[in-house]
């Protein structure tokens, strides 16, 4: 058995290794570009200029940062657990890069198109939570351990809506294989039939990536970087790289599943360069949304975050699956999906707003805590 790669006939293992190497090399460069893009875009939101001194228009800022980080001392606190501390970055970094295996960049450009692609993706990407907990525990720092436990709670909670949202999309497409889902959308992208699913996916993706407003595990203004507080130099940059690589893969999976990936909506095919443009444009749109959210909203609190996942997102993702099931089983027209999707999205916003705007009152928990204290004093 052999596989063709650029016209060469290769052993499947060697072929996969070469493809993965190519993707990893490509990714590292793209991630550096992303970091630059985030700095520039956020600077525009802030009415600043952003990086401008390193190279033309500051284009080499990421390179300068990388050189600085590599040159820094790789510190380990004396009381830290050596193995957990030093291995943690790999546990965060490797699963995220393994996720790139299933992404169909454009037609025919991929590492492997697994039949259970989405399942593989959600399974492998959630392993990085272990790395977060290891980093927090190994650092022997209280901020780090609080951050690690928050990361674990958050990662597990938001995994469910994420999986269910992806599942509802793949129900319609009839496959878990990403390129089949993309082909299914060659006429109408799934976001039209699954607006609620897309919203849930986007929110859960923000939480999975620990981006604002769900950057609770790193909470810069409270726990000062969370699990990464003790890391420096190259190990810290691996966390950083993993964060942006995770964002990129989430953007590409999201755009493949909901926006149609490299396909043009009305079933026409304009060839490879156009496909690349489409894939980059849709992925870029997704990433831009993430940046935009980061520049404009405050951080949630841990109880609000958990409540939002379990009390709102999870029931609504079940609702989406239920609707999809009815439509598929009884062969109803797809327009029903659009109508119910928009209605339930409205319902979701309404419920959320109702929860936020509840009448103000000093919390019962606070009163109880004061009572506990007074009891201790007396």
């Amino acid at each position, binding site marked *: 058995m052999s596989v063709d790669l650029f016209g060469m006939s290769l052993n499947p293992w060697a072929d996969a290794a070469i493809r993965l190497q190519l993707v990893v090399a490509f990714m590292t460069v793209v991630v550096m570009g992303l970091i630059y893009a985030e700095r520039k875009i956020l600077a525009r939101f802030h009415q600043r200029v952003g990086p401008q001194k390193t190279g033309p228009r500051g284009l080499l800022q990421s390179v300068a940062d990388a050189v600085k980080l590599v040159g820094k001392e790789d510190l380990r606190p004396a009381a830290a657990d050596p193995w957990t501390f030093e291995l943690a970055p790999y546990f965060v970094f490797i699963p995220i890069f393994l996720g790139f295996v299933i992404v169909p960049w454009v037609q025919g450009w991929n590492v492997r198109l697994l039949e259970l692609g989405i399942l593989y993706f959600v399974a492998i990407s959630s392993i990085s939570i272990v790395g977060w907990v290891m980093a927090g525990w190994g650092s022997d720092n209280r901020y780090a351990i*609080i951050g690690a436990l928050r990361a674990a709670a958050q990662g597990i909670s938001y995994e469910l809506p994420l999986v269910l949202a992806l599942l509802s999309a793949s129900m319609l497409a009839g496959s878990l294989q990403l390129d089949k889902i993309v082909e299914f959308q060659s006429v109408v992208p799934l976001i039209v039939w699954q607006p609620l699913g897309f919203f849930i996916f986007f929110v859960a993706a923000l939480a999975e990536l620990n981006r604002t407003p769900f950057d609770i595990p790193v909470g810069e*203004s409270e726990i000062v970087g969370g699990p990464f507080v003790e890391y420096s130099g190259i190990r810290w940059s691996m966390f950083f790289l993993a964060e942006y690589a995770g964002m990129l893969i989430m953007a590409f999976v999201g755009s493949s599943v909901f926006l149609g990936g490299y396909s043009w909506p009305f079933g026409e095919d304009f060839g490879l360069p156009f496909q690349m443009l489409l894939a980059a444009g849709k992925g870029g749109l997704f990433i831009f949304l993430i940046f935009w959210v980061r520049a404009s909203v405050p951080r949630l609190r841990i*109880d609000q975050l958990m409540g939002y996942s379990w009390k709102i997102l999870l029931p609504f993702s079940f609702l989406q699956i239920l609707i999809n099931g009815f439509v598929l089983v009884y062969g109803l027209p797809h327009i029903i999906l659009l109508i119910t999707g928009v209605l339930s999205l409205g319902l979701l916003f309404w419920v959320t707003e109702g929860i936020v705007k509840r009448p*103000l009152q000093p919390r019962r928990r606070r009163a109880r805590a004061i009572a506990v204290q007074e009891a201790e004093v007396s």
Partner: protein
Amino acid sequence: MVEVLSQTSDQSAEFETQDLLLNVGPQHPSTHGVFRMVMTVDGEVVRDVIPYIGYLHRGAEKLCETMDFRQGIGFMDRTEYLAAFNAELSYVMAVEALADLEVPERAQWIRMILCELNRLSSHFMFLGAFGVDTGVFGTPFIYAWREREALIDLFEEVSGDRMMYAYFRPGGIAWDVPVNFVDRVREVLISATQGIDDFDSLLSENEIFLARTQGIGSISAERAIALGMSGPSLRASGVDMDIRRDEPYLKYDQVEWDVITGEHGDVFDRYYCRVMEMRESIKIINQCLEHLAPGPILPEKMPRMLRTPPGEVYLRTEAPRGEYGVYMVSRGGNRPYRCKVRSSCLSNLQALHELTVGEYMADAIVILGSIDIVLSEVDR
């Protein structure tokens, strides 16, 4: 190394849990300076908080005793560096009361304009820092900084310094304002109004911001008074008290404006009181500009070296953070025998324990931000 207190929490039926001692500060991004609080957290809930102050103590009050009345002004700037005009005002007014000096009209109006502008710049600083405390990445901070920058440029044109103005003098002001002062103030007020509107749309109406601030860290009016809070932090609890209106100094009795009070005394009310207060400040300044007429800026007979008769005085003004009072004793001569600053930040900080205990750890940061302390005023 993770030390734990030996107390156990009350729901330890199956497994034992222990409270965690968490040291926040003195170097922490959200303690607004060198402030340290040691929190005892049970999971995410704060069970106890002990504030430690004094890292920034420079003995400004003691130093004032060795300086003559003119030199003391500079130390007052440094106690309250975000609202230095207001701090200077209390000091020079105390000296004026001791020396029985009459301040000319024009100097009073200029003082009033500058103090209200300083209130704006100080509150903008609060809005920016508070936005960062709630977790927005930089946006409110930079927005606030933009408006504050315009105000500080104006202060520089007037006094020659961006933060430590030393512009007020016992009896008046050091020198007259630039000729284009009125136009410049109008210009700055337009951009400041726009800036406040920006904050309303960025934060005040943001659902996540509301969820993070409403109902958090509330304090009743009785407790707020008992703890000696003042300024917007007190008014947020519904206490209708403003020294500018109750004991008018300068020309506050000649302008029309409202005292803003809150209702619930929670973090959001403390925030929103400040936002509304800024709009009132703009109203005050606009009226002051109409009253501003040419005239002398110092009394006719001003001695080269100011000496006061023996006596003592306590004089308080409404600074952006609350009551900023100066207690001054003179035994004759050209320097105070004793100068004591009543700091609004220190009194407001007393409420921290009561506000924070029982809230989530993340809220403790937001609550500390909502009290709006300036550490150099707390420690002096």
